[in-house]
């Protein structure tokens, strides 16, 4: 399982209310009908952290190793989609794969 804190975009000090707000905002951005996988990830993350008891349980018993995607999300979160520059187009059109 990916780090639920990163999935929801909250810190380890987040309260029940912070987590619920982050979940609701996430679902608004990624509604289940448009992005079911992302929604599923948000749902799992929310269920893992919903209450103080669950957050402590996660801290104590989650043994999943960090994934590369976790590390990337933590170090440099994905931003807004950007448009490649002409040089990037040129590289591909000239046959550099």
């Amino acid at each position, binding site marked *: 399982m990916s780090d639920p804190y990163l999935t929801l975009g909250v810190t380890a000090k987040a309260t029940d209310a912070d987590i619920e707000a982050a979940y609701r905002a996430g679902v608004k951005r990624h509604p289940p009908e448009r992005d079911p996988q992302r929604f599923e990830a948000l749902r799992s993350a929310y269920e893992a952290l919903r209450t103080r008891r669950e957050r402590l349980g996660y801290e104590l018993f989650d043994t999943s190793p960090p994934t590369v995607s976790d590390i990337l999300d933590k170090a440099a979160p994905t931003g807004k989609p950007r448009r490649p520059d002409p040089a990037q*187009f040129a590289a591909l059109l*000239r046959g550099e794969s």
Partner: protein
Amino acid sequence: MSKKRNKRSAGNKPGPASLSSKALENAAQERLQQGRFREAIAHFKELLKREQREEWRQGLARAYEGRARDLAEKGMLKEALVMWENRHRLGAAAAPTHLAHTALLLRMGRVQEAVAIFNQAADTLPAGELAALRTQLAAFYLGGQAEVMQGLAPEDPVVLHGEAAQAALAAYCRGDDEALEQALSTIPFRSPYRDGVHILKALQRLPEQPTQAATLLARVPAESAFAPLRQAAELALVPEQQLASRLADVGKATRRFALTLRGWSPERQALFEEARKLGEHPPPKALLHFLYRHRDKLGDDWVHERARRLLIDDAPQSLAWPREAGGRSLSQAEKVQVGAWQAERQHGDPWYTLKCWELLAQHLEAPHVPAPGSDQALRIALVLRRVDQTEDILAHATPSAEPDALDRAVAQYVERSLDYDPDAPQAYLRLIGYYLRGKELKAARRLLEPALARWPENLQVLTAALDTAVAGGAFKKAAGFARRILTVDPINKTARERLVKAHLAHARKQLRNARPDLARRELEQASAWDRANRFDIQLEIVDALITLATDAPTGASALREVNQRLGDGLAAGLSLALEAAAVGISPKALFADLGLSKPQPRGSEDLKACLAQLREHLDSGGKLPPEVTRYFEKVLKASAHFELSFQEMEAACETLRRCRWDAVRQAFAQAALKRWKDAPVFAFHAFEAKYKGAPWYASSTDIRRLERALEHAREKGDTRSTERLLNVLDSLRPTAFEDFPLPPEMGEELGPEALPMLINLMGLDRLLDMLGLSRDMKRQFKELERELGRPALIKMLGAMLSADPDDLPPFPAPRPRRRTESRGHAVEDDAPSDDDDPFNQPDLFT
């Protein structure tokens, strides 16, 4: 050695020059088919030296093309280009212009040569190929090769639409969608830039309209010069979970393009490129070092926490890794936690895991016991409940008699956890359920009190209280809890029924205590709550029994009337008998007082109703008092011949098994076996009912019948009967005397001198079976008895059992028969085993 031989053999082989033209042509074609292009080139060249034939020139062109492709795939672009050039020199007739050739020229910056080839081929190439070549030139022009335009005619579409395509690309890159659309609108559909137009439109829609973008991208053919752009754009649409594996298959330029579209910053992309070098499944230590290398970006605490999850499999050696990677050392509690994780993941031993978590709890308790409700207290509670949570022990286990059993320890830890986290109703409920299963009512009540105080309206807690009260026979209390449940949840049907049952049970209790007045009051309550009239017969009978206690003639008359109304058969009799026994009246005496004859079955329907009533009684947790058993066993046994279907007969046997009325069950099973010969299910019931508790006494005829039934069950695929029959047959194979329940009067000090008594008691056959002797040995013992008499047999058996094998006459060594179950088949294992060998148990009789 082999190399030399190969060289020699290669040297002996005739070269192309020594072959006839026909043989050489065959060899050349063969090499071409096999993809051995270098040899094919040499052969065709030799052929062309001899004679300039068109088909050989074409063969050489194909060989050059194949070789060029091979070299390009290996990244040897210059060498590949030489091959294309050689092919090109063969002339347009033998080797028409090839797109791969021009693409390679363009890619190597030799634009003018590519354009020249295009111009030469413009009149000869088929329209489709010409269009593809134009698209190639267009793609390279858009990719910044302005030179493309220099050699092309001004009216060529590549030149005509080039400016608009460039403008569109520039507008897209700077985010000017209006200019983009304007530029795109000037490019006609049949332009060589068409694929580029589709891609730009798709990219424009990519973030908000992924489906439309995918449709537009799908219009770009895979062989188009714009296909690399399409591939990169499609990666932007791949779901997050699949991205890593898809990125592994593409080059760096494609990755950069796709990741930019996905919003990855250059920093993230650089980090990803570094992580890729660790492999698809990086080893934990490598990943840990990677984490610590970037801890300035990731944060010390996060790295420390996540890195601990990488230590589990290699602990305890791995516990030093964080320090080695430049991080801080693990605290003692953190090390213990890694140990507990490892125990859960690797050991599979709940005891060991329990001890590991216990150790962590101790560390968390030190140096000060935290206040209940604090985070630390909650951590301790969760740790103490962990094994119950993972193994789900308290939900199913019945308290063991052994105080140091695992379930006891788990229950003790969960109870301890309540000191730290009393706000855990599920922990209370699991414990209460666990103690109730073991009839440990005191423990259940101890937990119930605080739970009720804390959650007075919690339905689960109230139900647990109701269960506890019923288990303790406190029916008044039970009724009170049922009423409280109905206050919270007025439409709770189960609670309503349980309330009726509690009042009924209390009424019976009062009647037993000779308080018909109080019994009547309880009955009225029960009656008031039984709105669905589910218990009307029971209510009516209890009412009549109360009347019987105060006004015998009226009560008796009411009971007779009920009996008549219910059919005056077995089912009616059972209803009366069960209620009478529940208030302490013997069914026999009741029927005698009422002047009724003993209930008799009124047909198969009556029998089925009686059995259904028994099932219902057992389902509701009722017990069958011995006086009811005594009263009904004989009459039910006589009903075994009634005509019931196979399923009804099977259900009857199962019900009688639950009642533990084995004599009746045996009669039913035997009757069924007469109709359905060797039916496995009835063979099982007949045998189990006959030898219940003492299968060792089974006769060999019965055992053979059972084995036959097992075969039938396997043939029919009746897995339930197979399983049951195998269990019974397994129980027939004792491996030592300690498993055999000897009659109590024999006491514990049984020695070889007890053999005569045992032979008399169970017969020689069964004794020899029980000793686990082979068929051969049993035969020899029997012959011995026939020839020399029983004293000699006893002496021989005694010698065998007193342990010294050397004292035995030359019989083959006894080999116990052991039945092991393997993939559902019984296997006769004749291999001797030390544990099973009676000679290895010298004190068997001492």
